[in-house]
């Protein structure tokens, strides 16, 4: 009988980890639906980027208030997890504060004290975040894509963190031994008086209940990630590692097009030659669905935490256009999830559902054509997400597969084709400026 709590704990832990691993596998499978792109070069620069941008949060602090608050929550999250290790071991072994005798009152007290201070700071930061979202109503949290689930999701995460941090502090405040010995109770000593009238047994019960809800909450939160925008806590690392390292102005050249153009311009090529037998389906130009995007673009979609810094600097969005780079990422993820579920429901193969990422269900042509390709969104993203590359791939699809460019752009392209300039001037007049005062 005495091992029942250990058993329940072990089952809880195994279930939590089991479902989490299942979700991770789903994410990996979905990301692998993307096309191949080689990002295996310049390893040292990639590690450096990851260290600076994900670990070091260098792009977060470009906005000092939210950046600083975020660093507090981030540092708290990582450091307090050391305590979770003890909690898990205690749960499995049926011990209470296993590390206390090992580390001694002094050092253990120092650690617990640090955790308590961090927990309080995180609690304060998270409350400020909640106020920013719900009371001050900062504009980037109010764009039209931030209604319904995305808005609730943002708040749920904050409630989760508030509850977890409070439970951690209550757990310490109601730990009679910790309070009596004054071990690291820097913050919890001020909470302990709230429970002063309660019997030792009652106090112990509150301590135990807090302990159990706290660890259960952590496991639930771990599994909430998959359904939430909060995956960035994991994916920010690979996302910054695999991000584009080239100049932001360099858009990739479509290799299949190069082959065709070179063949066209080769004076020795036989225009009537039959295509080689094994060529198969002609390659589709650009992207109309998630499977046309590359895996880094799909990982970008899962990494996006919907902070909206991209949208808040987008010239199109700032002037009231439909385009929002954040919405591009959110829609890409939603469609990818839909495709993933379709694959699961159909024994591992995708069945056409009559939908596409580009179209009325998700990203509209109006959004795609409003982009100025200015790279502000790419520059701004704290984890190096690249919404622009998706927009450009979709333009390529619209023009090369659908001939669906806006009329004025067709005219511009016709001019380039006919006379080598976007305007209808003869190439022979290219030097006229020399003699015009």
């Amino acid at each position, binding site marked *: 009988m005495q091992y029942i709590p250990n058993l329940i704990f072990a089952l809880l832990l195994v279930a939590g980890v089991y479902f989490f691993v299942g979700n991770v596998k789903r994410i990996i499978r979905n990301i692998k639906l993307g096309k191949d792109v080689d990002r295996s070069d310049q390893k040292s620069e990639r590690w450096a980027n990851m260290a600076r941008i994900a670990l070091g949060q260098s792009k977060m602090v470009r906005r000092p208030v939210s950046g600083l608050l975020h660093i507090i929550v981030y540092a708290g999250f990582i450091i307090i997890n050391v305590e979770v290790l003890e909690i898990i071991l205690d749960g499995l072994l049926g011990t209470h504060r296993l590390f206390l005798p090992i580390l001694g009152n002094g050092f253990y007290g120092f650690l617990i004290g640090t955790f308590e201070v961090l927990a309080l700071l995180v609690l304060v930061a998270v409350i400020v975040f909640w106020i920013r979202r719900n009371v001050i109503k900062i504009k980037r949290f109010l764009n039209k894509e931030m209604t319904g689930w995305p808005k609730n999701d943002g708040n749920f995460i904050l409630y989760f963190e508030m509850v977890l941090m409070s439970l951690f502090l209550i757990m310490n405040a109601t730990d009679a031994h910790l309070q009596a010995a004054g071990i690291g109770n820097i913050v919890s000593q001020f909470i302990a008086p709230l429970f002063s009238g309660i019997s030792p047994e009652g106090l112990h019960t509150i301590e135990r209940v807090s302990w159990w809800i706290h660890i259960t909450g952590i496991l639930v939160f771990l599994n909430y990630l998959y359904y939430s925008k909060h995956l960035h806590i994991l994916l920010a690392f690979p996302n910054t590692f695999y991000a584009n390292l080239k100049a932001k102005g360099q858009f990739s050249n479509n290799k299949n097009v190069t082959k065709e153009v070179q063949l066209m311009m080769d004076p020795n090529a036989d225009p009537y030659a039959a295509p080689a037998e094994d060529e198969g389906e002609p390659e589709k130009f650009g992207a109309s669905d998630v499977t046309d995007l590359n895996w880094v673009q799909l990982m970008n979609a899962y990494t996006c935490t919907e902070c909206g810094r991209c949208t808040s600097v987008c010239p199109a969005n700032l002037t009231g256009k439909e385009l929002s780079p954040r919405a591009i990422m959110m829609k890409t993820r939603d469609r990818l999830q839909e495709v993933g579920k379709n694959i699961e429901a159909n024994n591992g193969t995708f069945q056409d559902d009559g939908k596409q990422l580009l179209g009325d269900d998700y990203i509209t042509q109006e959004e795609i054509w409003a982009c100025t390709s200015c790279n502000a969104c790419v520059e701004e993203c704290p984890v190096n997400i690249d919404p622009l590359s998706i927009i450009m791939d*979709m333009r390529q699809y619209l023009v090369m597969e659908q001939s669906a460019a806006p009329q004025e752009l067709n005219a511009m392209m016709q001019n380039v084709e006919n006379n080598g300039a976007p305007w209808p001037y003869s190439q022979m007049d*290219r030097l006229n400026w020399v003699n015009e005062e």
Partner: protein
Amino acid sequence: MSLIVPVIADLFAQGKEPDILFWVGSAGSFDDRAKKITRAFVKILNKANVNFAVLGTEESSSGDAAKRAGNEFLFQMQAITNIEVMNMYNVKKIVTACPHSFNTIKNEYPELGGNYEVFHHTQFIQQLVENGELDLSNAKLDAATITFHDPCYLGRANNEYDAPRFLLKALGGTNLVEMKRSKKDSLCCGAGGAQMFKEPEKGTMDVNDLRTQDALETNPNVIATGCPFCNTMLTDGIKNKKKEAEVQVKDVAELVAEALGL
């Protein structure tokens, strides 16, 4: 002042080669406002005795607008044709006053066989100054408050924020004031990504008007930029605000030429 503008084919016929090719670009060749920038830059090249040449009628669209409009096929046709011409003339170095040509030739041409050292004209003029080939010590403008608008394809796209500012600061009698959104955080003029050639989508205002507001907040006499498209967009923005009597939109090269009395 008549300009000296050698054409590369003529030089070749005489058995000569230029040190650098000046890529004029479609806007620089045909747009009335941009042609003035082209001429100002040539005046500077002439003043510094740079051995340059242009492709003249052998130049064609860089393909930037086509690529950003989604027509990869047309882009690569343009790029490969231009590369064939430039490689035939053994071109090694290129300077251009258009950040769009600068970006695409520098970054997107190499994979297609065009490997050149490419400079934006502000970078090239800075080099001339630093090498002592162009003396700006007596260059002076009449008490001008200047604000610089970073072209996206020079700034964020290629991380060049300093060259134009170096030149503007080197001119006497000027005061350079930054906009609230500048350098990495600069706001687009609204022309990039082939927007120059189409009407904007439905919205609450035009991008160039918003950027013009940014610029006007600094109370400038001159809005300087380094891109023919930005120039057009901001000039229109100034007209929309009815400020054309007080505020001028100028390219950095025009300001340098003016300060040198060219």
